[in-house]
């Protein structure tokens, strides 16, 4: 294991340094950096898998010459699980990047891009395996820093700069809160080692524990993008190069989930009141719903995906929150179920979100635009990308038989099982959360029907789309890998669930794998098989069989007569792209139904012909959604701060006498105090 660990870290580290040293030949640097990253990724996958099933957590530590800081590493199941997630997505990303960064040749120093990419992966890996608070903070900040530099890769664009800065500041605010949490824990134990952090409840008053809970929630929530701390996400993720967006959206925000689980279940050992869980659950539900709703209104494909990250983080938190509530009522097995559901969705989201961002990247690569309204008809020009994107879309819309469906199913189960809880409030609240989840699910479905339908189907809406070509092989391979795992995790959850179970067993102390894998390994069941069960392989088989039945029917009646081609019926006119339903038009009804949330402002200008008011010469339509959180939450803070600073100007008024007066007053006052 030590060897594997060394290989992983060394691979990234070398990848971080070497590209900067070799002569500036983009191709060479590209292969070098991403090759090494891929190698380290493979090592990381092995390491994670071994660590997940190892009996004893593997620990090692290197003392540093600095006080408080020790480079301590611990590979318990939780860490290994996230390591596994990071490494697999990292591997796919490095393969994808081999092709993708060719777009940047000549514009951006590839050496820098590659080495930062490695650094980013390295820091993320270290974040999840760090076993010392100080070390954790160090790599955590490094992670933010690397990702920031990657975000501003194309810093000539002003919006990219803005996005980067906004991201950097927000994440630093989050870090400040995490520091606060760790300082609180530090007071309990007097050391920064995670071992000291565990079970602080003896040393803690309730007030301090509540404070720690809240600070941790805000701190990690900022990184995870929980509403209302999500505002940076839709700026930063699209601004980065797509393989980076995939990493940020798929993996980086998961480190925050890791942090939350680590603090609540590991450090606090699950000793918390029910309302902690409820807060998490409620935030999750809100994030999920608002995330998808804002996503629906996005026509920039990457921002759309970014908002979906908010949604999915919300879904994950639903699982974790439910787990926390169950745990606080002592229902260990159900708690384990909730946690497993959350973790499973974490893994799945990492995979299909990365896949989708890869797809978006490919579109960007082929068309050089992110605006969906300029896509269209790409499925015929980019069949591979299209197919992979479709798989991703189906998974994120949680449709069977893909992985997204399984994890959402599990979360539904854990929410439904709320009827075993003593409190009536919770009994009612969890099903409502379930209803919100259902709404979220369907809206996600709509959103990706839009995303796929508008981008890939019908006629091309712009010359970009008309002349698009399929992307090079490495990118396709990267996507294929993830698409395959989407299907695999969807069809064989019984093989995946034991992995999560290892984690929950180490966190909560009850293993429920044997109870979840029911009916001879064919079906998946939440704790009791009587309540519900799901057998995705059988479902898949039945789907195939019935489809075959349909084909049989066709063959039976009409044989296989070839169909003939005709024009689409457009009231007798020739169909032009302008006639097609636009993305904006597609979501119009939703915008109208949920207008209370969007508060849209619509502007319609029409120029009529001179002859008659019934014929418009030109129409101009634009609508904006109220950025509620910026307007009512962030702007006030910013204005207050800058206003305060402005009022402080008078201190530095430039008059020598004033300055002397300061000194004089200070002196006299201090003399009087000293007396």
């Amino acid at each position: 294991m030590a060897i594997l660990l060394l290989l992983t870290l060394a691979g990234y580290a070398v990848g971080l340094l070497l590209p900067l040293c070799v002569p500036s030949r983009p191709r060479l640097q590209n292969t070098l950096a991403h090759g090494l990253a891929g190698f380290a990724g493979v090592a990381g996958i092995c390491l994670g898998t071994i660590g997940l099933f190892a009996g004893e957590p593997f620990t090692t530590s290197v003392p540093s010459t600095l006080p408080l800081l020790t480079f301590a590493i611990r590979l318990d199941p939780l860490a290994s699980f996230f390591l596994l997630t990071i490494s697999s997505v990292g591997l796919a990303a490095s393969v994808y990047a081999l092709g993708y960064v060719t777009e940047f040749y000549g514009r951006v120093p590839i050496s820098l891009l590659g080495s930062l990419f490695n650094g980013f992966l390295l820091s993320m890996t270290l974040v999840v395996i760090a076993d010392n608070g100080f070390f954790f903070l160090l790599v955590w900040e490094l992670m933010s820093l690397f990702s920031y530099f990657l975000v501003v890769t194309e810093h000539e664009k002003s919006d990219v700069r803005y996005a980067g800065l906004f991201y950097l500041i927000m994440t630093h605010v989050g870090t400040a809160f995490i520091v606060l949490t760790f300082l609180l824990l530090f007071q309990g134990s007097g050391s920064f080692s995670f071992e000291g952090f565990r079970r602080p409840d003896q040393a803690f008053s309730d007030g301090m524990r509540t404070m720690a809970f809240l600070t941790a929630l805000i701190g990690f929530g900022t990184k995870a993008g929980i509403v209302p701390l999500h505002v940076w996400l839709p700026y930063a993720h699209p601004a980065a190069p797509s393989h980076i967006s995939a990493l940020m959206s798929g993996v980086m925000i998961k480190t925050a989930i890791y942090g939350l689980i680590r603090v609540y279940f590991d450090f606090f050992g699950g000793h918390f009141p029910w309302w902690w869980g409820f807060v998490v659950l409620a935030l999750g539900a809100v994030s999920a719903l608002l995330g998808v709703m804002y996503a629906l209104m996005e026509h920039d494909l990457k921002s759309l995906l970014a908002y979906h990250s908010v949604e999915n983080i919300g879904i994950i938190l639903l699982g974790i929150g439910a787990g926390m509530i169950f745990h606080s009522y002592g229902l260990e097995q159900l708690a384990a179920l909730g946690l497993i559901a959350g973790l499973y969705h974490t893994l799945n989201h990492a995979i299909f979100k990365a896949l989708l961002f890869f797809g978006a990247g490919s579109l960007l690569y082929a068309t050089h635009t992110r605006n969906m309204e300029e896509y269209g008809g790409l499925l015929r020009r980019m069949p591979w990308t299209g197919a992979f994107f479709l798989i991703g879309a189906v998974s994120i819309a949680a449709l069977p038989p893909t992985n997204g469906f399984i994890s959402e199913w599990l979360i539904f189960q854990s929410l439904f099982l709320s009827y075993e809880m003593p409190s009536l409030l919770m009994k009612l609240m969890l099903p409502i959360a379930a209803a919100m989840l259902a709404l979220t699910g369907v809206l996600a479905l709509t959103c990706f029907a839009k995303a796929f339908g508008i981008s890939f189907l019908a006629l091309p809406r712009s010359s970009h789309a008309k002349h698009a070509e399929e992307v090079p092989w490495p990118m396709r391979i990267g996507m294929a890998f993830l698409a395959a795992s989407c299907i695999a995790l969807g069809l064989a959850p019984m093989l995946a669930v034991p992995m999560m179970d290892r984690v929950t067993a180490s966190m909560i102390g009850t293993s429920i794998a044997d109870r979840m894998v029911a009916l001879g390994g064919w079906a998946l069941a939440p704790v009791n098989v009587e309540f519900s069960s799901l057998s995705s392989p059988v479902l898949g088989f039945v789907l195939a069989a019935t489809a075959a039945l349909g084909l049989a029917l066709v063959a039976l009646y009409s044989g296989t007569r070839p169909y003939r081609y005709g024009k689409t019926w457009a009231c007798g006119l020739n169909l032009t792209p302008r006639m097609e339903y636009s993305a904006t038009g597609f979501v119009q009804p939703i915008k109208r139904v949920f207008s209370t949330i969007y508060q849209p402002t619509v502007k319609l200008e029409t120029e009529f012909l001179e002859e008659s008011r019934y014929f418009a010469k030109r129409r101009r339509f634009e609508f904006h959604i109220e950025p509620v959180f910026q307007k009512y939450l962030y702007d006030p803070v910013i204005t207050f701060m800058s206003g305060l600073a402005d009022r402080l100007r008078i201190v530095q008024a430039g008059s020598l006498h004033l300055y002397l007066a300061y000194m004089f007053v200070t002196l006299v006052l201090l003399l009087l105090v000293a007396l």
Partner: protein
Amino acid sequence: MMESTVMIAVGLLLLPPLTAGCLSLLINSSRWLHVINLISIGTLVGAEAVVARAVFLQGSVTAFAEIVYIDALSSVILFIIGTVGLACSLYMRSYMDEQVARGVIAPKRLSLFFFLFHMFILAMVLATVANSLGVQWVAIEATTLATTFLIAFWRRRESLEAGWKYLILCSVGISLALFGVVLMYYSSLRVLGDVSSALNITQLQQVAAQLDPHILKLAFVFLFVGYGTKVGLVPMHSWLPDAYTEAPAPVAAMLAGVLETVAVYAILRCRGIADQALSPDFTGGLLALFGLISFALAAFFILLQHNYKRLFAYSSIEHMGLAMVGFGVGGPLGTFGGLFHLVNHAFAKSLAFFAAGNIHRRFKTVEIDQVRGLTTVLPWSALALLISGLALTALPPFALFTSEMQIITALSSSGLPDEWTQPGTRIPVVILLLCSVVAFAGFLYRITGMVWGPAPKDVVPGERWSVGHVPIILLGTMLAGFGLALPASLRHFVEMASALLLSR
């Protein structure tokens, strides 16, 4: 080690700047001026190494009839003086020559510049190694006199104004400090009798416990306000932004990097004596309180800066405040963090001013809004600016992250000294974190605005390699390196120093 070698080494601490200063008055060729400068700094650094070794072995070194006293604390400060001084001298090679070439200054004034520069260094070294508080005071006043013309060197209206303000405010402050010294003497007389050694640190430390607390309190207040003016603690900071903005880049680097540090050193020395008789809560609370105020105020001023030199000036107020908090809170952690922070800040800030100097030479403006696309125009300076910027906002892997975290941890675990706030309150930590976030936002908003973006049309892009880039690399690597692995020897020195500060 031979006593004599140590003596010589100590002599070589003071002699080179003096001789070099006098020589440079006689020389006109800029080339030779630089050579002499480098030689003197080189010898200085070498001597420091020898002395440091001696201190390492013996714990402290006294020389020249107890006029010179060097212990771990002073050697740490000497280390800072040496390193930053060397960096500045290397940087000046490219900086001053270009000024001369562009005819900004006449060659004759160049020699004057070097003379003052050497005097400046001499005064600082003297202040660091002086055994007598009186001599230390004289030396620190001398730094004021030496630098005031360096600040007003460009002879513009603004620089004159800055120089005048600097002169007046600092001289007043310093004379208050003198009153403090007098009081110190006044109290020590009764114990030691009327001997000329009654102001010697060595003597005072032995008898300090018997000194009268009342007088010491007053004395410390005077000394704190006086030297605090030099450090630039709010509300005695007012001269600082103006001076740093108007001074030539290397001078600004020295002021920000070293002079402040030396002033802090003076305060620490006096505190070391005062604490023997007083409860450390009084002095500590004073330091921590003013540190906190400085930190908070500076953070908000950083938020509204449009001038990058002022930006750096306020950031050094901020960091000095932070270090003060560290010393004030005390404890092994706080003190270590404070000293370590001094070292790191010196490096980062001088780096920042080097970058600022290069930018100013190329863009001919100090307005942040008019500086864009450094990555393409001045890649090296952009790198320096980024490193210093990230370091000064305490981001890893740079060392300030570590020291700041140490200080914050110390503050949160022990709180402000009890005499000033009710015990165990967590408000100071929250204030500190909040303000650090504010400063972070303001600082990086400006820095990134300058570094990124497309290059302006009217500026010639490209930066040729010059010797002026050596210090950038030097300091950058040190900052990054110390953040992850502090050399054992340096750590040992810092620990010895903090042990001295905590000894009671």
